[in-house]
């Protein structure tokens, strides 16, 4: 029996466990399937983490280490090499660890399992599946943690941040990155990563291009790329063969919710994570969710922020102190692909931070929180890009005044 069981020892799990302890949970347990704490951050050796949390730029491992050190200083039970196999609605957690299979009862549970990469199957590639085709995150782990060279001549498919970071990383390790190929008319990565990972090393970014075919039977030997038009049709005569021994796929991340589904936690088809209220509680009482398992984050500082809300409320639940009250739904409006949390608890003593993602790039934008026609809150942003989440906060008073469905929208100059 534990007050709070945290599943996953990445930044979300670490933040939730620490905050649960601070809020008065007596026994807090972290269950981690890997050989160490830190999650995905251990392989993200680049800098760019912690500007909000620590007001300085840290690398992924440094960010993780600071939290790991805090966890070591607290009485938090950490179980490594421990895979969670099952979860029930009444918060029984089945684990496979050093001592075989065990069942632990939690008064509350925090889901913090992170996300996984979409696989090659998620995109349409002709040809064989020869060696040398990797998911970008997998390649990152092999290179940065296991110390194996991944390849010498590289093409990267998808221009999300992981792809961009890996383009630079492999260049530094002596590989030639021939191109980053992106089907969309814009990169889904951060501008700074296009500048410091591609432009710095003269790596071409081919927008509105696709990979048509993969060559090579045992090991990849090359790819055919071509330009595509607005209707996603190949532009005749633009086909080109690029030789390479490595193809990295950076085609996106999806929350890892198999376990949540076992616990009958209702999921959102937009975020692919749990539906939560502003306390980060899922549809199942006493089960909370935060971090990349809830929705894919690009900034770890926000993961930490969210995980503290989940940890705090999980501790309150365990101590029978979680406030209950009326909940109202939130909905993405114009220009917004999703908002989170999906429900606001009006009695939330902490107020609420709404997270949202835009559909395209907006300049001179306004983020509006509306209840019917009433404008509840507005925030100006000079630039909003889909790759960066926008936050808007409602304080406890603003929250208590609400009584109908909340719509969040973005208006501004579209820039595509």
């Amino acid at each position, binding site marked *: 029996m534990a007050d709070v069981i945290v599943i996953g020892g990445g930044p979300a799990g670490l933040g939730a466990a620490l905050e649960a302890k601070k809020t008065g949970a007596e026994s807090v347990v972290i269950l981690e399937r890997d050989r160490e704490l830190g999650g995905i951050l251990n392989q993200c050796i680049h800098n760019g983490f912690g500007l909000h949390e620590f007001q300085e730029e840290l690398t992924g491992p440094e960010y993780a*280490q600071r939290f790991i050190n805090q966890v070591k200083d607290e009485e938090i039970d950490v179980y490594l090499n421990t895979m969670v196999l099952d979860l029930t609605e009444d918060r029984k957690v089945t684990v496979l660890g050093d001592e075989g299979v065990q069942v632990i009862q939690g008064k509350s549970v925090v889901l913090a399992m992170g996300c996984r990469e979409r696989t090659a199957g998620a995109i349409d590639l002709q040809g064989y599946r020869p060696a040398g085709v990797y998911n970008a995150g997998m390649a990152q782990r092999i290179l940065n943690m296991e110390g194996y060279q991944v390849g010498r001549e590289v093409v990267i498919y998808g221009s999300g941040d992981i792809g961009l970071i890996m383009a630079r990383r492999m260049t530094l390790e002596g590989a030639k990155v021939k191109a980053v190929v992106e089907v969309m008319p814009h990169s889904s990565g951060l501008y*700074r990563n296009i500048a410091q990972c591609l432009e710095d090393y003269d790596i071409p970014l081919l927008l509105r291009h696709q990979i048509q075919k993969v060559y090579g039977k045992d090991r990849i030997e090359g790819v055919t790329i071509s330009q595509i038009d607005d209707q996603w049709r190949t532009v005749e005569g633009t086909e080109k063969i690029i030789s390479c021994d490595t193809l990295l796929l950076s085609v996106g991340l999806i929350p890892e919710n198999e376990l949540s589904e076992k616990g009958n936690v209702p999921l959102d088809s937009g975020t692919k994570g749990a539906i939560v209220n502003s306390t980060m509680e899922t549809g199942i009482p006493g089960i909370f969710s935060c971090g990349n398992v809830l929705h894919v984050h690009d900034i770890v500082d926000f993961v930490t922020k969210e995980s503290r809300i989940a940890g705090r409320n999980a501790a309150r639940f365990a101590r029978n102190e979680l406030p209950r009250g009326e909940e109202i739904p939130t909905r993405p409006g114009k220009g917004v692909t999703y908002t989170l949390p999906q429900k606001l608890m009006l009695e939330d003593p902490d107020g609420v931070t709404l997270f949202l993602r835009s559909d395209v790039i907006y300049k001179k934008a306004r983020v509006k929180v509306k209840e019917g026609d009433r404008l509840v809150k507005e925030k100006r942003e000079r630039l909003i890009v889909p790759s960066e989440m926008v936050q808007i906060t409602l304080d406890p008073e603003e929250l208590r005044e609400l009584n109908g469905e909340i719509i969040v929208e973005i208006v501004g100059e579209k820039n595509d």
Partner: protein
Amino acid sequence: MEKLSLRLWVRKMTRVVEKEITCIACPMGCKLEIIRDEDKYVIEGYKCKKGLEYGEQELKDPRRIITTTVTVKGGFLPLVPVKTDKPLPKGLIFDLMKVIDGMSIEAPVEMGQILLENFQETGVNIVATRDLPEKILKK
């Protein structure tokens, strides 16, 4: 069209947009414009002081923080992640990579430990970015 006429207007005012660069000092990634006004340069488009500083540095001597890994003997993992503790002049990046490729250190390593001091008299040190104990962590 609008942009072009704006440029012409700007040029008339003796100010020329020389170059557009992306500020990398935070995830906002603001577009900075380097504008030549007769014989001096002006930077516009930054949203905060750090952006101005970045633009000025980028004009006179572009530098970058470099992160990579160093081989470790007898460690819990075969590599320890490292970074330059200050931005390194861009022209020296591949020289540094060559030196680091040849390095090997002994576990244990502690976060912040200096593994290479004052690289080529630049004042830049290579520091470890995590603890790396000798053998497998046991709880």
